[in-house]
């Protein structure tokens, strides 16, 4: 029984180690990508010590590619804009061929028909909760903002993400009103 128990604990240790190793590999070898954030429902903005993020690249309605169903895997092609942020160009069910200034994000379609990349939750310590809440409200605006207001807000709120060559992403921090938050 002892050897079986040791094997089981080793299995658990391997699982625990895999998560940070996977993230660490992406952060080490992946390309840095800055993704503009979109306004979110203010009541869902902060859930405890985490923040739900929504990206421009998550909005599938902007793409001509339709027919994605809930649960489908998809690849969103991103192209670097002159301001240094990355814009979503297209979404496809298979890995696309990329140009030199492009990266791809791998994700799934959620129940609201948005793309989910696994980088939608940002955790932070308790003592900065109020500060992040205030900065996020100022930077992100609201879903009813005009296009001009969103263009202005684009440089105020974005996420720093590392993306590897298979489209897997790891969230490393967020920027709100020029302040960096990395934990």
């Amino acid at each position, binding site marked *: *029984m*002892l050897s*079986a*128990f040791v*094997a*089981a*604990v080793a*299995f*658990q*240790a391997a*699982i*625990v180690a895999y*998560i*940070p190793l*996977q*993230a*660490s590999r992406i952060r080490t070898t992946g390309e840095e990508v800055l993704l503009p954030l979109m306004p979110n429902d203010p009541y869902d903005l902060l859930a405890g010590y*985490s923040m739900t993020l929504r990206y421009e690249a998550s909005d599938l309605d902007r793409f001509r590619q339709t027919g994605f169903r*809930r*649960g489908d*895997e998809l690849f969103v092609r991103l192209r670097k804009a002159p301001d240094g942020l990355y814009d979503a160009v297209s979404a496809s069910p298979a890995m696309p061929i990329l140009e030199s200034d492009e990266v791809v994000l791998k994700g*799934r379609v*959620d*129940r609201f028909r948005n793309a*989910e990349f*696994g*980088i*939608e*939750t*940002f*955790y932070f*310590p*308790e*003592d900065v909760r109020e500060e992040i809440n205030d900065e996020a409200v100022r930077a992100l605006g609201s879903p009813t903002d005009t296009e001009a207001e969103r263009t202005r807000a684009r440089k105020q709120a974005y996420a720093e993400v590392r993306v590897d060559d298979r489209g897997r992403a*790891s*969230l*490393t921090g967020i920027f709100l009103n020029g302040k960096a938050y990395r*934990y």
Partner: protein
Amino acid sequence: MNIGSGGIDPPREASPKFIESLNREVKDWVRQGFIDADQASRIKAYYRSGGPQLSPSAMAMRLIMVLGGLMIGIGVISFVAYNWQYFTFATKAILLNLTILAVYAVGIHLFLGQRYQQLGHALIFVGCILFGADLGLMSQGTNTGTGASHGYGVWAAGVFAVALATQSLPIAALSSFAATVWAFQGVQEPAGTLPELRFLLPALAFLAFGAAHRSKPLAAFAAVSFGGGLGWHLVRPFPDHWPLAVISVAFLYLVVAFASLRTRFGATVAEPLAGIGATALVVGSYVSTFHTVWEGKPPLAVQNDSPSPYVAYLLLVVAALAALLMADRRRLLEWLRTPALWIVVAGAGILKLATLLHSFVADTVLLTTLANLGAIAFGAALVVDSIQRERRESFWAGSLFLGGLVLARLFEYESGLHIKALAFIACGVALLVAGTLFERSLNKKEDHHVPSVHA
């Protein structure tokens, strides 16, 4: 061995759990006529509760150690919790993982030793919970969201590995809880090529584990998990037909329950499967009746080429044939003479009547009342069965079903808060009174059947 003869060895020590189990079995043997009351009392007298009796001072010392250890533990946890936010991710990870390793090391050492096995078992259980917390910490530290990911599935797999290694049912139950959350996450956010695997994989794992350990709760969980996956697979293309999918799966359970009676696992899986199948059949039929009465959907008819009704009828026929072929005549006749069975049949008839009358009677209140009576009949059948066969499981299942049905109806219909309050009080009083009377009646019968003989 002639139990009634002289020259019996002195009483043997046995655990309280064994003695409780033996008392139950001996009572059944007397009822079946294998042994008489005198032989039963001799068998019971042959075993006595073992374990060394602790002196008062030793008990006091043990209590002081436990309380002291608890206070120290709470103090350490409080200190860590207060300063937790100031620790870096690496510090948190090291602290938590070292704690888990220490808990596991002490736990397995005690578990494999001669004494404090229960404590060792509890520590390993705590370690499995901390493993789940560790996964959460790793996700937080790397900003890895949950969503359609497999966090709970991974937790379930890791805990199941420990359950297998230690052959522990409580740890397997913890794994089943995590697997259940993982499965329902899959329903909310279906991802991957076959999301039904979230139901089917745990079902297979826990069925094997439950059967090997003769654990009816785990076998029941595996059955529910399998049925959930199958039912969801049937329902996904035709969401409106979920009652029919439930009925189809219910008949499948009944068929498998009958078939399993002739296998070595029959004693473990047959009862949970039959119980879940019967309950699912009642729930599916009940809701299907309401769909007919209130929403005007044709009962159990073919809609949009759904195969569910045909599957349901086919499995009904197969279940009936299997029952006739596999049950021996004596047991079959015994079942046919059971009042509970005929109450269930009557309840099913009332439900069907409500459905059939829909075309002729416009009074939906009357039809709804009939449907509720049909469901009540099922709960009543369980209670009657429990009295006849002196089975606590049936009594509590039936009582809780009846109470739950009454309260569920109150919350669905527009009833004032005072009615709800009265209903809660009435159900609570009824449960207490009925439960007390039932237990007293059981205890009286136990004393009457097997008179105790003090050594």
